[in-house]
């Protein structure tokens, strides 16, 4: 039986969290198929960090490094992965549904002449056939479609961040690091990365966030969106926005949740001053827990919420902030006490 592969996602010289989440999915799949779980690392990652992949479930890691990689476009990655896949013929290949995963994998699937399912939230093995069952929200989150790739290999999927927790760390787990020699044919200089402009720290990706606090038209004006930002910050989450709020320029497009923005599945989604247009609701239906705060009892969002708070957001949110910040202060105090005694 051929192996289950995941593509670890690098950020500079570290691995992104989603790399370990992919291993959690990969581990169950490899266990039911009784095969090895391998991860591919393309980048300059220190060995200690690579070994963490074993700690979180990998049996084997293929490592490819080259000094040009940091400045290369996706083509090089597609070339490398095509080469490795053709040589080792994985049964299943999983990537993260991030901007790079969603760019590399479709091209890779075409190169390998196989299918690809985007943005999966659940993966399992079909009992008799051993086929990979890939479940993804479709048409926003209105329906869940389960898809398989019966006759082509590898079976490929990109998996949404936070769709699973990584496995508990087991530092006794060992594995094999395979260093793949650089093949000059992989070189591709058509696309060059010239640099990255970091955004303000609160602009992390809503797709990766465990907690998303989103605001809508009920905020009334741009300045008031500060409330959403502060609350997201206090809860350790990211800021989301409805299409209305984005179209009005209250928040940038990366924050847009819904059909023409991002479909998200955080553990907690908090919608504030959001009436709940169908297009927005489609983007949050797979959230684990939904909290809605709205003055209008009839707001759609309240109907799908786990916790619906009917009242004036301009009264409730500041109170919530006051209490959370007080709690944060206390936490800080504990740290200080521990430190001094």
């Amino acid at each position, binding site marked *: 039986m051929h192996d289950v592969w995941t593509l670890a996602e690098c950020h500079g010289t570290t691995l992104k969290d989603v790399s370990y989440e992919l291993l959690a999915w990969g581990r169950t799949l490899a266990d039911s198929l009784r095969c090895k779980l391998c991860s591919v690392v393309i980048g300059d990652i220190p060995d200690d960090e690579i070994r963490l992949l074993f700690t979180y479930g990998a049996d084997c890691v293929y490592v490819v490094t080259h000094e040009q990689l940091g400045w290369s476009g996706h083509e090089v990655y597609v070339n490398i992965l095509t080469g490795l896949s053709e040589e080792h013929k994985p049964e299943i290949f999983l990537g993260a549904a991030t901007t790079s995963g969603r760019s590399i994998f479709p091209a890779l699937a075409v190169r390998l002449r196989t299918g690809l399912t985007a943005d999966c939230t659940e993966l399992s093995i079909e009992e008799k056939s051993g086929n990979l069952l890939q479940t993804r929200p479709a048409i*926003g989150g209105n329906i869940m479609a389960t898809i398989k790739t019966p006759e082509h290999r590898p079976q490929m999927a990109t998996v949404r961040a936070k769709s699973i927790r990584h496995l508990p760390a087991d530092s006794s787990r060992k594995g094999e690091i395979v260093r793949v020699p650089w093949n000059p044919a992989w070189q591709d200089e058509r696309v060059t990365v010239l640099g990255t402009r970091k955004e303000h720290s609160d602009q992390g990706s809503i797709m990766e966030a465990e907690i998303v606090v989103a605001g809508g038209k009920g905020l009334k004006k741009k300045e008031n969106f500060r409330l959403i930002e502060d609350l997201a910050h206090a809860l350790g989450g990211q800021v989301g926005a409805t299409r209305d709020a984005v179209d009005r320029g209250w928040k940038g497009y990366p924050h847009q949740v819904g059909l023409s923005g991002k479909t998200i599945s955080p553990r907690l989604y908090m919608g504030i001053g959001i009436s709940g247009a169908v297009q927005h609701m489609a983007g949050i239906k797979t959230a684990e827990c939904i909290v809605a705060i709205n003055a209008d009892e009839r707001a759609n969002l309240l109907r799908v919420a*786990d916790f619906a708070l009917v009242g004036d957001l301009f009264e409730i949110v500041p109170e919530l902030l006051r209490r959370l910040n007080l709690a944060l202060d206390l936490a800080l*105090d504990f740290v200080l006490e521990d430190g001094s005694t």
Partner: protein
Amino acid sequence: MYIVVPIKQVPETGNVKMDPETGTMIRSGSEAIINPLDLYALETALRIKEQIGGRVTALTMGPPAASKVLKEAIAMGCNDAVHLSDRAFGGADTCATSYTLACAIRKLEHVDLIVTGEHATDGDTGQVGPALAAWLGMAMVTYAAKLLEVEETHITVERLVEEGYQKVRARLPAVLTVVKEIVVPRLPTLAGKKRTLHAEIPVWDAKTLDADPSLLGLKGSPTRVVRIETPKITRNTTIVKVSEEFPASDAVDQLLRFLKDKNLLGHLPGHLPGHLPGQERGRHA
């Protein structure tokens, strides 16, 4: 510069249903429109054309009625359009769709740039752009949020990525996928509309494309939908109303307790202060 913009016809609302038997969408009853995100691709292409000259062709694959979105593309300012329509194209997944579009783009010849929207609002896969690049052996630049420089041979853009904005320069020919941030789409004009009245939109079938039949439509689709479920959204809603008898502070109390029970306040200390009198706060300070 010769630019091709592949666009898609999608159902208008979020209320689309899917046939649980076949796994295909029930499109009847809701109006079909241009995928809203494709308007940004069209606008980007038209601006590049206006900036350095050239030609823009809109392309779509779909049933005869899909020619409507091509007409709209022409009304916006595209020079011409090509409609790919054949029963053999039906039931295509992103792999077969991108193959079909790639065949057409090859036939159009000397294409410098392909611009696509981020994803379609119905399928939401965002795979067709990068897949086109692979079929055509073109460079790809995805999630473009800002056009920095357009030259005859190169394009420089800022990509919207998780960390912020990444600046990249790509040699043409290339596939560019754009996000909503990049431009505001123009409105179609009456003059443009009138052009569409006389515009002949060629319809290309599998034979015209000289495509490999085994890679088209359902037959050419490696993926199969095996099951469709409607996720349950019936949640056990706790409703709390703020009123004179039940002030916001009490409501917030309940909310915090709820979040704590769900383990969603992980980074905060074990207890949350309620209406804390000063001295209790002082104990920890």
